[in-house]
């Protein structure tokens, strides 16, 4: 039996069907938490925002109009929550939190060596230092693998804007990672010998 579509599940959720809602939560929770972790720099906050986003989705189920874009709709709610929080919290605090708490992310993937860990920390820190608009677009494209159209729907902007934000975000990341990246690539030949 084929898995129910998002539209079918949302129709059931609007009738207060908790089982259908549970399926939706299970379907999107990991990608949403991962996205929000990069956006907020904190796994705990990511989970809080993800829960709040799902709750809002549940509450607005009766008003939801199916356009085949549930994921962008859900991620838009989550992005708005993260943005609201970013306004409340200073940007510097977010960066520091990100730098000081890198161990939060280390439990999921076994890390090869110290350089790899360092590189990931630097990349995460550089990503966290991007403006939220760039960060959201870069994470959705590069990490979540979304299409430009889906990202545009989630961030409520045109595809052109999405492409521009991603390009600028990549440029910023390259600039911020250049000193570290040069150091890594210079050390590699020495290690090989």
């Amino acid at each position, binding site marked *: 039996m084929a898995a129910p579509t998002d539209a079918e599940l949302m129709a059931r959720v609007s009738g207060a069907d*908790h089982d259908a*809602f*549970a399926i939706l*939560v*299970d379907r999107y*929770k*990991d990608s*949403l*938490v*991962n996205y929000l*972790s*990069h956006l907020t720099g904190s*796994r705990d906050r*990511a*989970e809080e925002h*993800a*829960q709040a986003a*799902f*709750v809002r989705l*549940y*509450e607005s189920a009766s008003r939801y109009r199916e356009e085949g874009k549930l994921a962008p709709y859900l991620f838009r709610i989550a992005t708005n929550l993260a943005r609201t929080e970013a306004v409340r919290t200073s940007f510097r605090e977010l960066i520091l939190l990100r730098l000081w708490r890198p161990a939060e*992310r*280390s439990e*999921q*993937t076994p890390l090869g060596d110290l350089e790899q860990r360092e*590189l*990931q920390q630097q*990349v*995460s820190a550089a*990503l966290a230092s991007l403006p939220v608009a760039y960060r959201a677009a*870069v994470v959705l494209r*590069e*990490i979540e693998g979304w299409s430009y159209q889906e990202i545009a729907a989630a961030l409520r902007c045109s595809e052109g804007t999405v492409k521009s934000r991603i390009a600028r975000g*990549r440029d910023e*990341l*390259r600039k911020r*990672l*250049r000193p570290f*990246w040069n150091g890594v690539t210079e050390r590699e030949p020495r290690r090989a010998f």
Partner: protein
Amino acid sequence: MSHDELSEILRALPRQTASRGFTTRTLSRAGQDRPARVRLRSAFAIALALVVITAGGLAFRRHQEQVRLQSLRTEQQQILKELDELKALSKESEPRVFVGSSGPYDFVVGVGPRSRTTGRQRPVSLHIANDGIS
């Protein structure tokens, strides 16, 4: 750092997953939060409406008081102005009493200060009505 290298690094970042019990917690929160949120929103809306109505009423009352005060001030200024005019008039013009006429002459007695020598009021002006000579 090339475009592909950057993409590769970003994709290689460790993925976060939802913690155990996330779905259960979310479901219970969705079940509980709705009435609480609705109640909270309703209370907030009512409080906001009360504040707006009270503030509007106070502002209207204050405006009315200001209008009334302004009107009183204008009236007071008008009275003071008229009083000043009367004072000036009383200083400028000498009180006169029309005594009577005889032929072409009108006899008008000015009520000025009394004579120092006689102690009587003396005529201070004579008005001849026909040729306008005083």
